[in-house]
């Protein structure tokens, strides 16, 4: 299982073997992922969007900070 996070949203699914880009495309709508969101795997930034996910990974698309105050 891979845990995918965006902001408060998260889900776990059988995504091992998929790339970061695959998952971004598959879950963009379901998790409301910004196309520009930075991807982290297990807390480390992943500039390579073709990185392949492994079982147990946590993939976060980091949602941008709130602007207003």
């Amino acid at each position: 299982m891979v845990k995918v996070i965006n902001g408060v949203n998260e889900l776990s699914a059988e995504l091992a073997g998929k790339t970061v880009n695959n998952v971004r495309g598959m879950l963009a709508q379901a998790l409301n992922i910004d196309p520009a969101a930075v991807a982290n795997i297990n807390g480390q930034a992943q500039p390579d969007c073709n990185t392949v996910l492994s079982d147990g990974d946590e993939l976060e698309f980091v949602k941008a900070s709130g602007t207003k105050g």
Partner: protein
Amino acid sequence: MAPVNPQPRRAVIVGLGGIGSWVLQALAPFLNFAQETWSLVLVDGDEYEEKNRTRQAFEELGPKADIQSAWVARKFQRLRVQAIAQYLSADGAEDTYPVRDAIRSGDIVFSCVDNHKTRRMISDHCAHLRDVVLISGGNEYTDGNIQVFVRMAGEDKTCRLEKYHPELAEPRDKMPFEVSCEELAASSPQLIFANLTAATLMLNAFYAHEQKKSDWQKPEVYFDIVANTAAPRVRNR
């Protein structure tokens, strides 16, 4: 030997609008009745206008820092309060107040501003202080986040605000004193409940820090008021 009265601790609220005015509403009574003596520094170059009543907490129209300082002085007499009725800048140019004079080592800083450029400036300044707790909040219409940056004895205990956030690392917006009247008038609408949630989560982070129960591995919390959810997130230093 008689005990020496320690210097009051300082809490600085930068921005007294939708988030900051609510932070102050709860922080002032909390600090006033705390065991330690606290000093509050209230910073904002803006003024309260009639239109702000839809989502900001204030009693009178006028300069935000002055109005809120007078309110604190009237209601909470154990608190010392200082008003800085100017916007912060890196160098104090153009009738602004230098950030280095507003925020000092040892401060607890609530960054409640409405632009990433000021957030980044405050973060950069705090990153050079020996001891500081920076609690930053921001929201969109129904969601947002808070971030906590802690430095102790010259060492980062949490990651810097911008590490995971390119929009903070390279902000594309402007500071308030750089914005034209037309740009100000075009600012997007906000919801009071989103402001209140950001304020509450910032105060929760402050309380956890004071209780020495902060989870430095999770210094960022996202919220969504429609989903009625808040989620802390892991951030590596």
